[in-house]
């Protein structure tokens, strides 16, 4: 089961992203070249929730940067869905520095709207609505340093969703929060995804998180980064971690991942 094959059954759903034999090599300062990605093939349809799973440093972030256009691939091609534009309807949630520290929560959330010339009053009301949606009602005027780690990630998600993205890229957004907060955030994200049907590509190194969130889990191999295999997750949401299907998948993926280490 490789990711390269194009799934004909979902032909009627428009494509959001297609990667064909994408490779990326970095030139280090000493002249040595490091292959970060090799032969990555991927097809994502609109409305899908895809999780990319792999060890830190396996090129997942590089892949996201290629998608957003922050970096350019050396090999292969990358095609975005017709209506997708960077700086317009593609949002990116990072793990760190997700909010501007000089802006309040509400004004962080409305940053994208401000850049689009939306009037102040409307920006404010949309920001408050967005913050309410992520459970931060009453924190409109708080600065990021006054919020906890989990609350900051909530605000960051509100900030990304405020521009009504068609593609949402998330780079280990819950990597720096504790376990129970993480579970809450995962639940919130799932709810938001089911409500908006935004295409989400979510990078994580946490197997549990990949299974809880994704409709598909792509397992990355290291050095060079490559998609090793793919798991389709059909478990009903909200997903129960104690479910035997869940644990079976967990063990399967775990085995796949540890197999790479040998």
């Amino acid at each position, binding site marked *: 089961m490789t990711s390269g094959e194009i799934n004909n059954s979902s032909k009627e759903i428009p494509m959001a992203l297609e990667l064909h034999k994408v490779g990326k090599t970095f030139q280090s300062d000493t002249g040595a070249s490091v292959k970060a990605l090799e032969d990555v093939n991927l097809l994502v349809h609109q409305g899908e929730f895809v999780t990319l799973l792999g060890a830190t440093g396996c090129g997942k972030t590089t892949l996201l940067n290629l998608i*957003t256009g*922050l970096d350019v691939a050396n090999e292969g091609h990358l095609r975005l869905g017709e209506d997708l534009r*960077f*700086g*317009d309807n*593609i*949002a*990116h949630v*990072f793990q*760190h*520095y*997700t*909010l*501007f*520290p*000089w*802006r309040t929560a509400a004004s962080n959330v409305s*940053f*994208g709207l*401000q*850049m*689009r010339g939306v009037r102040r009053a409307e920006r404010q009301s949309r920001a408050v609505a967005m913050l309410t949606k992520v459970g931060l009602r009453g924190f409109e005027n708080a*600065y*990021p*340093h006054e919020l906890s780690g989990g609350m*900051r990630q909530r605000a960051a998600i509100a*900030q*990304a969703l405020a*521009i009504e993205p068609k593609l949402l890229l998330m780079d280990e957004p819950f990597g720096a929060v504790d376990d129970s907060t993480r579970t809450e955030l995962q639940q919130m994200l799932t709810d938001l995804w089911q409500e908006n049907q935004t295409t989400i590509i979510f990078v994580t190194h946490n197997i549990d998180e990949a299974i809880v969130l994704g409709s598909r889990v792509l397992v990355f191999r290291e050095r060079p980064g490559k998609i090793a295999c793919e798991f389709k997750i059909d478990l009903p949401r909200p997903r129960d971690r104690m479910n035997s299907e869940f644990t079976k998948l967990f063990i399967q993926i775990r085995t796949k991942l540890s197999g790479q280490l040998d």
Partner: protein
Amino acid sequence: MVFVIFVGGFFPILTNTLDGVAGVRRNYLLLAQTLGAKRRQVFWYVYLPASMPMILTGLRQGLGLCWFVIIAAEMLPGAESGIGYLLIYASDNAAMDIVIASMLIVGGIGALLGLMMRKIMSGLVRWHGKEI
């Protein structure tokens, strides 16, 4: 006098502003770009607020330096008024009471200016030093 003030204030403001702009985290630029900021908007909404603490630090240092440069300039031959002039004039005439009073006033005003700038700063950039 304007020239003296300019020279005194210019460099601390310039170097601090440059440091501030150079120190803007790349992440904030990326974040702004993904949220749709154009070049001009990145300047106004990221570079400017992000380097505001350093710009204000420059202003504070510049202001302090200006104050002492003015006093020093007033002490030079050719000056005919000012507290620096008064200080030199009093010391030439062995009026120690006036010399000490002048020194206290110079120091006091300097400290007050510094304090005032600090207050303005902490009001304007509440977030500074608490970066996340």
